[in-house]
Structure formats: C-alpha cells, structure tokens
C-alpha cells in the first residue's frame, strides 16, 4: 500500500510549492514574448530566460545568483511557443525546489523533442487549421466579419488556455513533467481535431467547387478543381511550392497575354 502510494506521489511530482500570483502573472505575460529574439543559435533560449526572470528573482535573494541562473536558462532551448509554458512551469518549480543545475540542464535538453512534436501536431497541424477552416466556413455561411471574429475568439480561447494550463501543469509536475505528458491523452485530442479538419476541408472544398460550377465553362472548371484537390492529396506537402509557382506564373502569363489577345 505504502509502495503504491509512494509510486503515485512520485508520478505526480512533489507537493506543489506556492508561487505568488503576481509572479505567476508576470511569467505568463512574459511567456507571450518567448520568441521575441528567436534565433538560429539559441532559438527560444533568450525568451525562456526573459520569461523565467520573475521566478528567478523570487527564488534567489542574491542578484549574482539570479544572473547566473538567467545565463543558464538563456542557452539553447527549443519548443512549441505555446507549450513552452509547460517548460517554464517545470523549470520554475525546479529552481524553487533547489534542484541541482546540472540536473536542470539535462531536463532542458530532454524537453524540446516532446514539446515540439506535441505542439506541432496539436496546434500547427491541428487547432490552427481547424479554427481557420471554421472561420472560412462561417464567412461563407454568414459574413467575412463573422468568420474573422469566430476564428479569433475560438482560436485564442484554446491558445490562451493551453498557455495557462501548461504553466500550471509544469509547475505542479516539476521534474516529473515527462511522465505526466505521456498520460495526458494529447494524441487522442489531436485525432479528434483532425477529424474536424477533414469535415471542414470537405465543406470549404464543396463551396469552392460550387463557385466554379457557377462559371460559363462550368463542368470543365469543376473537373479542373477536383483534379487540383486530388493532385494536392496525392502529392502531399511537396506540391505546395509548385502550386504557388504555377498560380503566380499563370497570373503572369495572363498579364503578358493581355497585350496580344483576349480570352
């Protein structure tokens, strides 16, 4: 019984240490700027040090110790910017608990892979296209203003919730963040979001193809539209640049051809 209790306690991390609300709010606001100095050498490093500074000042009384901690946290770090709040919470907690800097460094080195992969799938390839397609669908159904407002409200409700939740989870988990991440069921959430994207891609494709059907040479244009959709689906991401080039070139050809004849 006691062993089971110990195992659960270890999984859930140490009892939560308290952080003054003003410090927490300051870190969360600063985390919005975590990519302000994004660069190819330290990536989010500078932003992480900037966002963690209020915690470091709260934890360390000696200004020289604060400077040393800032220097440590300004080194190379990469993560999805929204999920960086998870790392900020966990790293802040580790500083509060007085964890050995070498162990903090190992922890920092292990986090970027999982946080980048989860964030890319859940946000960049999931939540953003879902909200974007929802906004476009609302634009088609009602008005562009309604679509834009819906997009911004829905997207940012999720975005800000992830940042806040991430910091809280990171702070409560501390060193055990890695094991806690695995049990969150984020992959299941990502699958739900992807199902929604499928539905909305269908809706927007239907609207675009119907628009093409309204033209003079309707069946030919609809056929071309279906082929374009299929070509994108078959080719995948490598087709994106050629698509952009072909459309730009097509517009250029039309502009040039205008000098000679009219279609």
């Amino acid at each position: 019984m006691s062993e089971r209790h110990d195992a659960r306690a270890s999984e859930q991390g140490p009892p939560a240490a308290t952080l003054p609300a003003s410090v927490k709010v300051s870190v969360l606001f600063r985390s919005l700027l975590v990519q302000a100095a994004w660069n190819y050498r330290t990536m989010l490093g500078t932003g992480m040090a900037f966002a963690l500074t209020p915690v470091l000042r709260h934890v360390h009384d000696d200004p020289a110790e604060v400077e040393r901690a800032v220097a440590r946290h300004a080194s190379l770090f990469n993560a999805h910017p929204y999920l960086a709040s998870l790392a900020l919470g966990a790293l802040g907690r580790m500083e509060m608990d007085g964890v050995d800097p070498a162990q903090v460094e190992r922890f920092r080195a292990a986090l970027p892979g999982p946080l980048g992969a989860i964030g890319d799938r859940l946000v960049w390839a999931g939540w953003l296209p879902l909200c974007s397609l929802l906004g476009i669908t609302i634009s088609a159904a009602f008005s562009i203003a309604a679509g834009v407002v819906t997009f911004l409200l829905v997207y940012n409700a999720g975005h800000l919730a992830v940042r806040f939740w991430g910091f809280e989870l990171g702070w409560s988990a501390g060193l055990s963040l890695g094991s806690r991440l695995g049990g969150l069921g984020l992959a299941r959430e990502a699958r739900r979001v992807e199902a929604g994207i499928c539905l909305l891609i269908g809706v927007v494709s239907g609207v675009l193809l119907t628009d093409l059907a309204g033209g003079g040479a309707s069946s030919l244009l609809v056929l071309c539209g279906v082929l374009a959709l299929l070509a994108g689906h078959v080719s995948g991401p490598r087709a994106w640049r050629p698509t952009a080039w072909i459309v730009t070139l097509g517009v250029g050809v039309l502009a040039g051809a205008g000098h000679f004849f009219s279609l």
Partner: protein
Amino acid sequence: MTELLLLALIGGVVAVDGVAAVQSMVSRPLVVGWVVGLLVGEPVLGGQIGVLLELYLLVAVPSGGGRHPEGGIATVVAVAAAAAVSPSAAAAGLGVAAGLGWGWIAGESQALLRRWNARRADDPTHHLGVRDVVRAQLLGLGADFGRGAVLVVVGVLLARVLAPLLAGPWPASPMLTWALVSMGALASLGIVLRGVAETRGRAVLFGVGLLAGAFLLGGA
C-alpha cells in the same frame, strides 16, 4: 499618406504577431485581408483575398526555424495590389500572385532577422545577464516591427505602380481568373487533407462536408 502609414503600422503588428509576440493569429491572411480591405475601401475583395491566401498558407505554419511565406505581410500587399486595379477582372489574380511572391520575400527577411538576433543571444565573450536578455528581447521585437512596416510600405508602393500596368489589358474573364486562383486553394486543401484523412471514417467525414458545402453553402 495616412493610409500608407496605417498600412505600415498593420505591417509591423502582423510581423510581430506572426512569430515574435503573442501569436494570437491576427496576422493570419483571413484576418488581415478583411482589416486591410476595410481600410482601403474594398472589404469584400479584401475578405476574398484573405480567404484565398489563408487556404494557400494553411500548410505554411510558423513551425520552428522553418522558412515559410509570411502570410500577414503578404496579405497587406495582396489586398493593396488588388484594390489598385479593382474592379478589373485581374484584381483577385494579381492580388494572390503579389501576396505569394511578397510572402516569400518577407519569409526570407525573417531568416535574416533571426541571424541578426543570434549575435546578441549567443555572445561567446560573456554569459548573458538580465539586462542583456531584456535588451535582446526589445531589439528583436523592434527590429521585427520595423521589418514588417518597411516591407509593407515597399510592397504596397510597388503594387500600386505595377498592378495597373499588368491589369490594363487583362485578357481573362473574372470567372476564369477566380478559377485559376481557386485551383491553387483547392490543391492546398488537398495537401492538408492528405495529412489528416488517414482512415475510412475520415474520408466519410470529408464526403459529408463536401456535400454540405456544395448544397448548403455553395454560391453563398
């Protein structure tokens, strides 16, 4: 002049929102197209171009250090180019082409900014202190804002000069021009679909959506 200054301000804001700060997605083409359309007196055209570029750039997300076209700046220039020739049939085509081209240039300028940021972030001569970090953050933000504003001013001025020259003898009907740019948007949707439609159930969802879009919303 006031309009150009406001566009420059929007350029700075969307450049910063794209990666450096907040990432609230006010920098997405869907939002920027509508806002700039209102500003230049073409809300419908701005909204249409915003929707098209949003679809094109669904696959170009600000992920890590990847180079991607910058949608916010691209859309400001795209709407300015389209508005410069509206109501010509060329408007949507020239707008989207200008946006795609300028988006790439903006993306490359972001890569330059990231190299410039690296000088302060990783100084081998001394460890960064609190002041250095704050300075690097502020300079990064300021430079990104300035980059967006300058790119928009240059792009809009070029668009206003070149777009009327290109649109003058435009040979295609509005429908054909719209079809051309819609094809690219549909291809982009196909690319996104490939990444998410892994099961038969999702293919069914796509089909249901397609029918709903065509019969309930088509022609809206």
